[in-house]
């Protein structure tokens, strides 16, 4: 059987298995927002962990990072800088978010912050910012899906067909199953995905001579490629400033909108703590794996440039791996892409449904609002596909835009749990300035999305004045009402302070 036949066979098998899981989830999902978006707050550690891994290990991980390692070298591993802070971030943010979500029935992050800062304007403003975080990631996944199929089949399946197939599959399993269906599918496929990818890596490793030391020596000999083994790298991306940016982003990650459904869906706080620790233990292995793939493919397929860099893994697999393995791998990577997209689509749909539509449609039933959520999922998928059909140059740029916007929400979100003096004036002023600086950089062009003034990444350049303005304006203006402070900080303090004696 040809490669394309194996891909179709494996893909259809996956589709059927997922379909069965989603059908079971659909039958167990009630027509309430609590059920559709946060699975009745019932998840244990395993489902929470795999659902998050499914969201995180994505087209960015398997295509963007491998491509980046191919282009700039092992410096890509400073992504560890992000992960090393993630468990702490998940614990410090996830526990209060879970508590407040359970107590006051929140299903989207914005609900919580609108109540905390007593501002209706923040509802719409944060919804827009959150979409800036979610949509670039979605586009990235759609682009990745198209490239994977095109690269692995040597162009037999065109890019646009891959994007469209991805969209159809996503719609089929997200619209009926909601968060529960998506998380169950992720839990089932997580282990299988890891096994298939490990097999493919071993195969490519053997194809490159079965000797990493040999691969390294070849890279050293081919100067200036030896810079691939150093930081800041062959393309000098991994600079001092990028390290600092990664650190801020790592700690901010727990505040990103896509994390909140995971917090809210947890059964209790212990689930969040254990999930964070297990994630921290195993995540670097996945990063390690993809970065080494970048080095191996540099030897197997040298000389790629431009958009081809992001599809280097798919090209290598299509060229060197056996056809059955190619079929399994493509189906598995496709599954990972869909999982990641699913997490972001559901977050975006929850944001719009709960934070924008529901307040405008007073008197409508929960069932009606959930139906609107399902329609929105379809609309978001269609918009992402339309943009993905004419993609930007590198996948990583899209990721950087999402990250840069994400950290602009960090000051107001962190203060919501840890700084009672923070108020709506500070939150609005700081985030407006941060976003203004970022939008200015978008107009300056692609070059300035990596580094701006003094070599500082624009996300960090915007974050510093954002934080400063948030603090100063909050201190100079009227604090939030005592009832609100009691509702949030009072509850958290009483719940999580050690009992004396």
């Amino acid at each position: 059987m040809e490669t394309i036949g194996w891909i179709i066979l494996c893909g259809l098998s996956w589709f059927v298995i997922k379909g069965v899981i989603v059908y079971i989830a659909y039958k167990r999902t009630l027509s309430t927002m609590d059920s559709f978006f946060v699975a009745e707050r019932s998840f244990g550690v395993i489902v929470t962990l795999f659902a998050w891994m499914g969201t995180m290990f994505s087209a960015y991980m398997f295509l963007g990072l491998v491509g980046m390692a191919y282009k700039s070298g092992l410096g890509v591993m400073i992504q560890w800088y992000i992960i090393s802070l993630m468990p702490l971030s998940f614990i410090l943010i996830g526990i209060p978010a879970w508590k407040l979500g359970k107590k006051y029935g929140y299903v989207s992050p914005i609900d919580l912050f609108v109540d905390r800062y007593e501002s209706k304007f923040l509802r719409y403003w944060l919804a827009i910012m959150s979409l800036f975080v979610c949509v670039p990631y979605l586009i990235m996944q759609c682009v990745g899906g198209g490239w994977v199929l095109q690269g692995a089949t040597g162009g037999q399946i065109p890019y646009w067909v891959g994007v469209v197939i991805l969209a159809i599959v996503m719609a089929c399993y997200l619209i009926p199953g909601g968060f529960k269906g998506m998380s169950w599918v992720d839990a089932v496929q997580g282990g299988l995905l890891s096994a298939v990818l490990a097999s493919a890596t071993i195969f490519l490793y053997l194809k490159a001579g079965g000797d990493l030391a040999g691969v390294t020596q070849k890279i050293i000999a081919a100067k200036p490629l030896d810079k691939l083994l150093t930081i800041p790298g062959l393309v000098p991306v991994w600079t001092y400033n990028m390290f600092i940016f990664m650190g801020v982003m790592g700690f901010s990650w727990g505040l990103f909108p896509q994390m909140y459904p995971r917090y809210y869906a947890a059964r209790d706080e212990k689930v969040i703590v254990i999930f964070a620790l297990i994630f921290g233990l195993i995540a670097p292995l996945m990063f390690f794996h993809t970065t080494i793939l970048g080095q191996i493919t540099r030897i197997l397929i040298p000389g790629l440039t431009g958009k081809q860099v992001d599809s280097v893994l798919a090209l290598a697999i299509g060229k060197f791996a056996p056809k059955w393995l190619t079929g399994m791998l493509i189906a598995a990577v496709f599954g990972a892409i869909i999982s990641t997209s699913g997490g972001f689509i559901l977050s975006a749909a929850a944001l719009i449904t709960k934070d924008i539509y529901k307040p405008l449609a007073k008197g409508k039933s929960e069932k009606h609002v959930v139906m609107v959520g399902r329609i929105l999922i379809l609309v978001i998928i269609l918009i992402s596909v339309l943009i993905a059909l004419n993609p930007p140059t590198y996948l990583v740029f899209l990721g950087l835009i999402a990250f840069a916007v994400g950290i602009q929400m960090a000051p107001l979100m962190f203060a919501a749990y840890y700084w009672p003096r923070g108020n709506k004036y500070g939150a609005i002023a700081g985030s407006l300035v941060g976003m203004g600086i970022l939008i200015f950089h978008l107009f300056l062009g692609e070059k300035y999305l990596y580094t701006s003034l003094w070599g500082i990444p624009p996300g960090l350049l915007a974050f510093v004045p954002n934080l400063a303005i948030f603090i100063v304006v909050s201190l100079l203006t009227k604090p939030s009402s005592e009832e609100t402070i009691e509702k949030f900080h009072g509850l958290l303090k009483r719940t999580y302070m050690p009992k004396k004696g």
Partner: protein
Amino acid sequence: MGILQTTKGRIFCAIFVVLVIFAFWPGPLGPSIGYNIYEPLFFGWLPGWLFFRYCIYYIIWIVTLIFAWVVVMPLVKHKKEGD
């Protein structure tokens, strides 16, 4: 939230800050291993700067584990107010 208002919580946060700055700062103000240097190569292929950071990553993870065990878990095991 209470976790950061305890002495233990604050001590751990200070340890995290120091560790993270020490471990990952790539230049003269911290460990300069790796800035335009790939030697020594561990196992013939793993640059020294990367090996160093891989070790430090897991040190940070162990500190997080102790923080979770010593500070966080006892707090979340309490009977909650408002439950």
